[in-house]
């Protein structure tokens, strides 16, 4: 079992500690001074996961909507980071990511308007904003 776990996590360790011990912190510091595309993608992934966790754990339907906004925003960050990277490689489709991000923002605005309309209608009928109490579609 231990051997298996060791094998499973070897890639993580090797990523973190590629250099011998004395150069470890220096390498991390050197990489942190020059953030690249992967750092932006990691920030996007973290924001996305925080949004997913919010959707899965909160009971307040308005906070769930806010978490969905976080998820869409993380997707936008990824689009723009990749767009910048493609600009550096001289790709012809370099601004496609920015154009797509405009549409993501449009969809987010429409989704927020409709969702909050539903929240108001629900609150008027059920007097609650807790998602576990809104079960009128259950058979």
């Amino acid at each position: 079992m231990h051997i298996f776990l060791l094998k499973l996590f070897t890639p993580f360790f090797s990523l973190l500690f590629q250099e011998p011990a004395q150069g470890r912190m220096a390498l991390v510091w050197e990489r942190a001074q020059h953030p690249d595309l992967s750092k932006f993608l990691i920030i996007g992934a973290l924001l996305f996961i925080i949004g997913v966790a919010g959707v899965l754990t909160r009971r307040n339907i308005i906070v769930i909507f806010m978490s969905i906004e976080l998820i869409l925003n993380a997707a936008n960050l990824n689009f723009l980071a990749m767009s910048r990277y493609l600009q550096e490689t001289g790709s012809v489709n370099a601004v496609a990511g920015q154009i797509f991000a405009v549409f993501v923002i449009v969809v987010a605005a429409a989704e927020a308007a409709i969702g909050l309309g539903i929240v108001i209608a629900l609150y008027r009928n059920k007097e609650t904003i807790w998602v576990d109490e809104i079960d009128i579609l259950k058979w």
Partner: protein
Amino acid sequence: MILSGWEAVFFWVFSIAAIFAALLTVMARNTIHSALFLISSLVSVAALFIILQAEFLAGVQILVYVGGVMVLFLFVIMLVNVGEEERGQEEIFNRSRQVTTSVIFCGLLVAGLIYALNVGYDGLQKRDAATIAKTSADRQTADQNLNASATGASKITKGTEWVGNGLYRFGSLPFEVASVLLLVAIIGSVMLARTLKQEAAVDDVAPDVLEKQAIDDPELLEMKATE
């Protein structure tokens, strides 16, 4: 794309601010606090957009999200009553088993994503290193030739021009579809948020439903009689 100097400093400041504000959005007890933390997260991400040289999108993010969507959120929060939540009488998270499961799942997803991103980015870098080195010289000369701004302190980038060009050249059909979507959203939210009284005023509700509701609200029947 490798940032250095002040760009790197601002990258770390704004990304850490964005992540902490996002965490507090999810964890705040008061919904108003959640909304305000979400606003600061969105502003930090807009700053990241500027670091990514997407100035137009940064402006749109602040105008649409912070100026429009978040104000809508704040209005709705103030319309619905969340007094119990603020006083700490209601549990804000789901049952603990659900929370544990989802947090474990999210942790695994984070670990997997970071690992995959690191490995994938190394491969991408190896593939594109030659192209980036070749185009970076061209980009530097192109940046030198940009027009100076009115004060002369900075240069006017072409980013917004590219986005506009691309939007109307390659994205004109989605653009029109998006405008129809917004129209549908406006009409839909107006329809959803109407009260029964407003529905009765335009004679849009079945008579028996109206009579049933009139037990609580006699005004509804009067409204019917006057019509």
